[in-house]
């Protein structure tokens, strides 16, 4: 009996070994060159719609190069925390990183990224082929110098969506015209936007109470700053004296800037949905998709997804550029460049990816899949404005973008602004003048610590 048990076991073992060997052989025989060579690159970015498009695009690179692509995508709210921590600790998680535009100063000064000038020269990649605002915003440090640390990867800016179907209803149009004396149309100025938002606020449409506008109010990361700057720029806010760098008094807290901040608060108070006191991109998408708001501030990166939405997309959605203010017409720059991480063990392969990504055909496919190319060959092509319903607004926006500080100390500058603005707009603490005066003090202190004295 014992002998038969042993025989049975040896049969089982033999069978299992044969199966294992078969699987192993099949694995070896499968023509997957990447696995065969064992090459792999890890690309780090935020977890959002364009990241899915990049995964799709990356399959072509693997096919062409036999290098497997692995992705580390982190939600926006912890994106900066997670990856700046990784870069700061000289980690080897990422070979390639699509880092936020404001990181470029710190990444260059701290040597987190590989400088790409020699590589660009060798591979005949020229920054003249890219939209100037993206080169300045995502690649250069120091700004306006030919020192490149990233290839513009994902062009982006703040734009607006609106409910085209609501705007076009005859009864709504008639009522609006009766009330304001002009047609209801996508706003060109912030005053118009507020008027439209007030008109829709609390209105019942299809048996549901709706609200005027959705704007950014998030406190923890960058949300409210990325929202309020769209208004501040257009009311005359400047980060510093254009003629005297780091001189901020009278520019950050100028009377025009104060008016801009007061306007943002007025818009928040009059025309947003209740409870959106700590809301950023996702909350905006939720509010728009659920039919709560007439107009939504958000990044262009989300517009392809919104256009495809079965409930609010297609003919129901329209897009417009960030409205102008009394003093200027700008919009907040978003987007990122792609860089090679200096601690990566696979820098050659990572550079190979960047070379592949910079090709016009790849950039064209990137745009078609839902990414936003910054290559002039793509965006300046005659067919581009008609290639998507939001393409004309995107082009217009990229010509008027302005970015937040990209200094190495940007995180401190950003968090100071988050605090001062949120305190005033959402928590009703103090006046706009006090908030901006305090911001000047905070920023002056930060620059002093960084050895960049602001001679106020």
């Amino acid at each position: 009996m014992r002998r038969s048990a042993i025989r049975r076991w040896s049969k089982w073992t033999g069978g299992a070994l044969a199966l294992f060997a078969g699987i192993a052989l099949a694995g070896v025989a499968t023509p997957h060159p990447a696995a065969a060579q064992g090459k792999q690159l890890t690309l780090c970015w935020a977890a959002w719609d364009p990241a899915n498009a990049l995964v799709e695009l990356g399959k072509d690179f693997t096919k062409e190069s036999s290098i497997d692509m692995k992705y580390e995508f982190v939600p926006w709210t912890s994106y900066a925390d997670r990856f700046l921590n990784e870069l700061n600790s000289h980690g080897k998680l990422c070979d390639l990183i699509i880092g936020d535009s404001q990181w470029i100063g710190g990444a260059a000064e701290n040597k987190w990224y590989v400088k790409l000038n020699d590589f660009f020269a060798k591979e005949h990649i020229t920054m003249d082929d890219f939209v100037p605002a993206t080169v300045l915003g995502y690649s250069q440090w120091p700004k306006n110098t030919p020192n490149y640390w990233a290839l513009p990867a994902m062009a982006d800016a703040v734009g607006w969506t609106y409910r085209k179907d609501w705007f076009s209803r005859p009864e709504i149009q008639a009522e609006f015209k009766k009330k304001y004396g002009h047609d209801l149309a996508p706003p060109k100025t912030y005053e118009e936007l507020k008027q439209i938002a007030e008109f829709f606020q609390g209105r019942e449409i299809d048996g549901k109470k709706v609200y005027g506008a959705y704007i950014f109010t998030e406190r923890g990361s960058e949300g409210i700053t990325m929202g309020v700057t769209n208004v501040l720029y257009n009311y005359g806010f400047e980060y510093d004296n254009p003629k005297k760098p780091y001189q901020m008094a009278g520019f950050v807290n100028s009377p025009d800037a104060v008016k801009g901040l007061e306007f943002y608060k007025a818009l928040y108070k009059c025309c947003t949905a209740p409870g959106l006191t700590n809301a950023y991109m996702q909350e905006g998408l939720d509010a728009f998709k659920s039919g709560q708001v007439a107009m939504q501030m958000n990044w262009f990166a989300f517009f392809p997804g919104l256009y495809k939405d079965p409930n609010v997309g297609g003919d129901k959605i329209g897009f417009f550029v960030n409205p102008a203010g009394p003093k200027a017409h700008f919009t907040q720059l978003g987007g990122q460049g792609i860089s090679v991480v200096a601690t990566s063990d696979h820098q050659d392969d990572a550079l190979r990816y960047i070379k592949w990504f910079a090709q016009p055909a790849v950039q064209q496919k990137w745009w078609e899949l839902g990414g936003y190319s910054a290559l002039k060959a793509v965006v300046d092509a005659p067919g581009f404005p008609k290639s998507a319903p939001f393409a004309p607004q995107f082009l217009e926006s990229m010509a008027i973008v302005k970015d937040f500080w990209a200094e190495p100390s940007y995180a401190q500058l950003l968090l100071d602004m988050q605090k001062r603005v949120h305190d005033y707009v959402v928590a009703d603490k103090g006046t706009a003048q006090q908030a901006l005066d305090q911001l000047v003090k905070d920023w002056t202190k930060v620059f002093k610590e960084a050895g960049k004295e602001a001679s106020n």
Partner: protein
Amino acid sequence: MSAIIHPNAAPVDRIAPAPFRAARRVRGLSDRGIAWLFVTPTIALLLAINIFPLIWMIRLSFTSLNLSMSYLPIRFVGLDNYVDILTDEDVWNRLQMTARFVISSVTVQVVIGFGLALLINRQFRTHSFWTTIILLPMMLSPAVVGNFWTLLFQPQIGPFNYVVGLLTGVAPSSFSMTGEVGLAPWTIVLVDTWMWAPYVMLICLAGLRSIPDYIYEAAEVDRATSWRQFWSITLPMTTPFLMLAVLFRAIENFKMFDMVNLLTSGGPGSTTELVSITLKRAAFEKWRTGYSSALAIVLFVTVFGAANIYVKALNRVKQR
């Protein structure tokens, strides 16, 4: 004293040499040596993961180190970071906010926890079932609690506002528990109490169960009323347990971070920004390592000092 020896057991003289042999194997080591042998790994670990980082942090607190600008030379700045912290109005505001949160939260938790313990101690038929139900929130992760209360408090779809609306007639979407300056601090107290009052209940229950029945029996013989029994027996004899609960909860609440961060992110504005959130932002978002080390030391000294005073008071109560 007599010993019962099993008939099959080996004779005593054959068992005794075993430990003796073991002792001989480690010959050359004194009792103290053996004690050190056992204690050394623990001490080494303690030094490596507690004491060394603490000393390193104290050292960093006197420097200008900022990890987002690690290319800058690290300067010795003396007490500058401490002066910065102690003269910063915002830091004082955060400390006051934290103190208010700790005091209100612990007070409410002690009252509710003690009340629940008195109820559960009554040994009614389904008391085990109710004990389990009451303890459930305590078993959840603070991150989970923060996330699901955020949903419950959502003004338009959250059940909390709906129930309040039903009871009071106020429109559910007309107020935001986490977004209004007047409500947000109470919201974090509410959620913290929901989660941790059961913990206080457990400690109080242990206290209540430790009171011998004969004391109550004697009180009944003396015809003491229930109220009199509560004031003269129950409360004094559970006071050390209550004080222990207050100590544990106060220390925990002083360093509360995760739940509040998820519920309000310290907002609206800085209304619910506890000092732990300020510390996290300084250390891991602004990367001001020198400054945040100094802030951590200030907080450590505050908690350590307060806890010491409190423990002395607790010992005095125990001795009474």
